[in-house]
Structures are given as C-alpha cells and as structure tokens.
C-alpha cells in the first residue's frame, strides 16, 4: 500500500508512572486508509501509548504531529477535535442511558436543547455507510457486548474521527463476531480512515493489519511491513524477545474425583444464570473453562468457592456434599481460590500485605486463638512466603496496593498453595502479567498437578488453556456447551463451542 503523508505521527513518546517506565522513546505513525497493528504482550505499554495519543495521560517527553503539524493533546476533548476516536478495552458507556444519549454526550445542543433529530439522522447515515446498525432508543444495558462495542465505534465516527484506535477489541468477542468487526474495519479503512488495532493475538494482527509496530517493555521492539506474509514465530520473537517455549506438560494420571458439580443452577439474581452445570475435576488434572467473558464463568467460580449458593444441583468436594457450605467451610475442606480480580476480590490494598496473605485463614489456629490474633505467626508466615515465592516488596507490612501485579498474583498464589489445597480454582491467572511471571505461575500449577491437586483454570486466552490444561470445557450462556480433551481441541473447535454453534460434545 502506498504511504501518503501520515495522519498521525508520534515521536519519542516517553511516559512513566512512578518508577515504572510505561513508554520510552516510542515512534509510531499511521497513514489515511491504513490499519496499523500495535502488537505487544500485556504490560508492554500499548494502552499507555494510546492513552497518551487520546489525551488521557500527558507524556513526559515526545511530540505528536497531526497531518504534519505539531499538536498539543492534553485532554480527550483535544483528541476528539483533532479527529482521534478511541474504543477502550473497558467501554466508556453509561449503562442506564440510551444509545442516543451516549452518542450525544458532549455534543452541543440546538437552541439549548439536546439535538435528538440531528443525532438520529447522523446515526442513520453512519449505520448506512458502514453497516453498523443500532436501536437508538434502547438503554445500553440492554445491548450485547458486541453491540456495545459497535456503539463505541459509532460514537467515534459520530464525532468525525479520522483515526480510530481500538484497544484489544476482540477480547470480548466470540470468533464469529470478530469477522463482523474486521469487515467493518476494512470498510472504514477503504474510505480513508486510519485505524490503530491493538492486540496481542498474532493471528488477528496478521489477518487484518497492513503494517505493524511491536512494543516490548515500553519500547519499539520492531516493525513489520507485511504482517500477512510474516510468520507468527518471527512476530512472537519480536514481541517476547525470545521464542516462546511452552512449559512441558507431562502426561496426566488423573486420580479420584476431587470436585464434582451435578446439575448446578442459579437463579437470575445477579449476573449470568447458571444452567445445569455438571463437571468433574480429578486429582492431578487441570480442567480449563473457556468461553467469551460474561457467559457465567464468574458465577461458576462463586458457586464453587461458596460465595454464592446454587438454587439447584449438588456440589461435592472429595465426596462430601458442600452445596450449602460457606466460603470458610469449603476452604476448610481443601479448596483454594485465586480470584479473577486481584484488586477487588483478592486483596485489601490499603492494609499490609501480610493481612491479605492470611485473610482467608484468619480464624484458623495457625493465625489466631480464642479470638486473639497471633501477630508474630502472621508476620512469619508472610515473610516465609515472600522468600519462597520471591515476592518483590520491602516487607510483609508494606501496603499491598504498592506491589506490582505480578508480585500480587504470586502473593495470592502463595497464600493458597501454602495450605496444599485438594482443589484449586483460578480465574484469569496471568492476565496483565509479563511473560516471566506468567511462566512462573504456569509452572506452579503443573507442580500442583503433579502433587495430585485438581485445578480449574477459567480463562479467555485459548492458546494458554490449550498449553496448560488436560481437558477444556466451554461455557456458553450459563451452561457447558462441550468438553474436549486438549489433544483433540483446536482454537477453531473451541471457537465454535464458544458461540453456541456446536452442541453438547
């Protein structure tokens, strides 16, 4: 593709958060009609770079040129005025307002009133141009995740964006929805829009983009001019700095069932309803739970850890019925849990790390007696684990929130593994971690598997699940759409199950 004058050029962008350099001397440019891939591992600085471009963060150094002219973008209003639109990973929508209201936010009204008629006309026009249809009167809460993403794209176009940034847009989509998104993006590029497509998925970048910039540790690790004809291995090496060697998973020797769910259902009180979930985890095996996020994975994790009581069905741990057990009781039977969201459900960021590390077992004899804490035991336990897991922190009394994501994840792992769980349930174990930390965590899981622990890994990254798990169950709309041995499983087959196309397997 010929490269006309770039639409946007970023030169020498540097941005630090405290001691962490999220971006260092990054150069990047996009031409009209071009789809640029921005590739990098989690934590490589892609999102930070784009937030700088969108005016959310002020760069410490560097400049931004728009059509060759230096521009100062210090707020999203500046970015919008410069024709930059962004679809964030977490949508910026107000769930209780309607589609039209979400589109019209920040748009000047007509004679003091919201210009509904003008908004509807403009929406119809954009829908026609790119095939992005939406019902303007629905509240956002009534839209599917794919529709919400569509709304975010329309919102950017509505404001006259000439450059569209999409931050990991496929993470929330099922494989079939991804195709729809890609064709819409191609149509926009054909009409002269510039697009920056952020991803860490190589196959998507190769399928969609014209050119690709790879970030590693906040710096540009390399550029790929013809992604479609570059091997994944070559790009992965740019991204990670070395060829990825998956941890070796030996043959599994599953033993007794340690956890069994039989016809578990929940009512529609909050979140997704579970419908007749039956599954078994045996000692010494890793069971993966795949699925597009929001299909009941969270509810499943809550039921298993005793936080939410099922309305029907039976759950047993090592043969004992625990359907009505509290979190403390299932834990006492040997269930370990590493929650999905470290900051909100795992740790207490404002208290010392040691407190978070003993939180689930504070009532046990190890850490208290007759209602009184054993501060020395708590401290000693935390110190021991900090050493054993190489958790980088000044000490057990450091505020937990001050630690990095990888170290927090190690701390959560340590607090569960220290008590030799029979069953371990883990959600998104490596989200947001760098390769080294992720690998460390994977190795720990494999160690536990060898020791006869039954592990459930809930994840969205199919590649990770295929490497790690012995079997993979796919959740779709609150039920198990199918379970595959990972030897027979492929991304394509799992993808079909994830969209509900293939029935119970």
């Amino acid at each position, binding site marked *: 593709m010929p490269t006309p004058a770039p639409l946007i050029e970023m030169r020498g962008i540097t941005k630090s958060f405290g001691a962490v350099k999220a971006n260092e001397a990054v150069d990047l440019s996009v031409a009209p009609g071009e789809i640029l891939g921005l590739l990098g591992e989690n934590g490589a600085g892609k999102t930070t770079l784009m937030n700088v471009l969108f005016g959310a963060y002020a760069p410490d150094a560097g400049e931004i040129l728009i059509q060759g002219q230096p521009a*100062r973008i210090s707020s999203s209003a500046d970015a919008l005025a410069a024709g930059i639109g962004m679809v964030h990973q977490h949508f910026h929508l107000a769930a209780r307002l309607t589609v039209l209201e979400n589109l019209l936010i920040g748009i000047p009204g007509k004679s003091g009133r919201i210009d509904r008629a003008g908004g509807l006309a403009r929406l119809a026009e954009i829908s026609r141009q790119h095939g992005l249809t939406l019902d303007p009167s629905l509240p956002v809460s009534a839209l599917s995740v794919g529709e919400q993403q569509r709304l975010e794209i329309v919102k950017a176009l509505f404001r006259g964006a000439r450059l569209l940034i999409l931050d990991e847009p496929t993470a929330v989509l099922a494989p079939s929805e991804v195709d729809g998104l890609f064709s819409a993006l191609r149509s926009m590029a054909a009409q002269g829009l510039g697009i920056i497509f952020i991803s860490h998925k190589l196959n998507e970048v190769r399928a969609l983009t014209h050119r690709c910039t790879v970030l590693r540790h906040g710096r540009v690790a390399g550029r790929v001019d013809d992604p479609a004809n570059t091997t994944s291995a070559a790009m992965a090496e740019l991204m990670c700095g070395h060829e990825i060697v998956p941890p070796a998973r030996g043959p599994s020797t599953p033993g007794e069932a340690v956890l069994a769910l039989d016809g578990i259902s929940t009512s529609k009180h909050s979140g997704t309803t579970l419908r007749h979930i039956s599954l078994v985890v045996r000692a010494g095996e890793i069971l993966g739970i795949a699925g597009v996020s929001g299909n009941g994975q969270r509810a499943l994790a809550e039921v298993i850890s005793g936080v939410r009581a099922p309305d029907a069905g039976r759950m047993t741990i090592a043969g004992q019925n625990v359907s009505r057990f509290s979190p403390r009781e299932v834990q006492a039977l040997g269930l370990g*849990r590493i929650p999905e969201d470290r900051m909100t459900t795992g740790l207490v960021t404002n208290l010392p790390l040691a*407190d978070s590390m003993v939180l689930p077992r504070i009532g046990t004899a190890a850490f208290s007696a007759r209602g*009184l804490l054993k501060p020395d035991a708590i401290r000693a336990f935390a110190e021991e684990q900090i050493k054993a897991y190489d958790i980088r922190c000044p000490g057990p009394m450091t505020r937990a929130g001050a630690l990095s994501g990888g170290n927090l994840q190690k701390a959560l792992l340590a607090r569960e593994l220290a008590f030799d769980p029979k069953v371990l349930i883990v959600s998104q174990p490596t989200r947001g971690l760098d390769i080294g930390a992720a690998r460390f965590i994977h190795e720990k899981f494999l160690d536990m598997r060898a020791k006869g622990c039954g592990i459930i890994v809930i994840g969205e990254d199919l590649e990770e699940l295929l490497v790690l798990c012995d079997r993979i169950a796919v959740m779709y709309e609150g039920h198990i759409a199918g379970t595959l041995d990972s030897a027979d499983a492929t991304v394509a087959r799992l993808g079909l199950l994830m969209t509900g196309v293939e029935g119970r397997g």
Partner: protein
Amino acid sequence: MFRLEARTSTPAWFNLALPLLAIAATLVLCSGLIALAGAGVFESYGVMFAASLGDSYAITETLVRAAPMIFTGLAVAVAFRAKFWNIGAEGQLLAGAVASCFVGAIPMPGPLAMLLMALAGAAAGAAVALVPATLRVKFKVDDVVSSLLLNSVIYYALMALIEGPWKDSFSGYPISPPIEDSANFPVLIEGTRLHLGVIAALVAAPLIWFLIVRTTLGFRIRVTGENPEAARYGGIHVQRVLLSTALLSGALAGLAGVGEVGGVHFQVMSDISPGYGYSGIVVAMLARLNPLGVVPAAIFLAAVMTGAEAMSRATGVPAFLSDVIQGTALLAMLVALLFTAYRIRRVGAVQ
C-alpha cells in the same frame, strides 16, 4: 501545574504531624472570625487556653468534658473502620442516658447501680445503632441517612419522656427525676468534678485499640471496611461483622450518655448533650480512626469548648466559635489526610 501523585508508603511521623497541622490551620483560619468580632486574636486564644488547660482545675473540667467525646469518638472510629457510617452517636448517647437514668433511680447498692447503669446504657445505645445497621444489611437503606433521622426520633422520644411521665411535678421543669445519690459516680479529686466515668473513658481507648489491632473481630472489621468484596471472598461474614460493629459502636456511644448522667448531671434534660455525638465524628477523624488518638483529639475539642465559653465572657466573641472550630478542624484534617495517600508534585509544561 501541580499534580497529586500516589504515595507507596506513609512516613510514621505523619500520624502526629497531620492532626497538628490541621489544628494549626484551623486556628489560623478561625482567627479571622475573632478579628471580625473586634477582639484580639492572641488574647482570645490565650483566654481559651488558660481557661481550659491553664491550671489543674481547668484541666479537670476539660477532662470531664472530654470523657463523653472519647466515648463517641471511639464509637465513630470503630464504625468508620468498618465503613459503617454511624452518624447516629448523638441519638445513641441520648438513649444510653435515658436508660442509665432509669436504672439509677432504682434504689440499690451504689456499685451495683453503677454497673447496671453502664450495662443498661450500653445496651440501649447498641439497640439504637442496630437499627440503621439492620436496615442497611436487610433493606439496603443508606446508613448515613437512617442514623441521622434516628437522632431526631430519639430526641423527640426523650422530650416526650421528660415532658410527660418524668416531668418534675413540683417545678414543672422538663427534667427527669434525679438518680439515687448512691448511684452518683464517685469524684476522684476533692473539689473537682473529675468522676469515675472519666477514668472509664481513658481506659476504654486502649481496650478498643487492642480490640481493633489484636483480635480477629478487629481484623474482620478492618478488612470489611477496606474491601468488603475481598472480605466476602475470604470467608468473612460481612453482614455479621457490620452488625457486630454497630453493636459495639452503639454501646460506646451509649456509655457517653451513662457518664453524663452518672457523673455530671445526675438526671436527664433536653440539652444533656451539646452535640457530643457529632463532635465524635470530628474526634475520630482527627485521630485518624486510631482509638489511641481519640483521647488527645477529644481533649483538644473539650478544651476548645471549655475555653470558648471563658473567651466569650472575657472578650465578647460569641462562644459559637467552638462550633466553627470543630467544623473547620474536620475539613482541615480531611485535606491533611490527602498527604498520607498522595504527594504534591510540580509538573512542568509538557514539551
């Protein structure tokens, strides 16, 4: 351009420096009002200090006034630690006063009477605090609003009592009958009003500190307050913790009322509390919710209150200055607390 930047750790000396900074800022700000009233700033503050902390008698008076605020300050500190927004310490104090007055009027041996007064007052305060906590846990009613509204309800109930069945039939004044003489808290130093309740308040602070820092209940209260989701996933029964916290908090506020009845007024009247319940919020915040810090914070506010009256008599500056000082101190402390979480960084223009 200045920017707030998150801190990873807070130096220990901040715990002492911040309240002092807030108090200094408050006194500077309020000196404007003294000047507005046409009085000398240093003279007025001088009178305040002399009248509240200047001699041993003044100190005992200040301590007597500090006692109820130590209790309400502890009540609020415990509640806020669990993020149970108990703004109802005022009503709980009144309930404690009424209950202890009721018990104290029954003839019985002095020590027994005092013990039962304390138990009854604590129970009454706890019962009142249980209402907003239950409403929050069962019906998701905002605890701030319900505990505030409940203050009015309790106040009117107290008025109905002292203007109704308890009304002094001889004088016609709306005051309750006095408690038995034997139930009056013993005075510790002859010629002062320093009573047993003051010692109880001073002892309560380290006990509550121990409870928060060293017991599993305290651990659960702290974790629930900081992150209820993590607490729930960690196997803590969050609702039960909230209810326990409410009982504890209400009991402490109730004890404030017990001290006022048993040690100061020996009966109940409509103005038995000049807003000690609300002052408890200021005390707790100045103490950074640390039970040990509650004692000096309460003494500071008590000194301001005692001193303001003397200042008003000497200089004509309205004694309501002490109310302004309380409000200002609370706001100043909140701003000062920013420095524990953030540091201010100068940011150069982006080039």
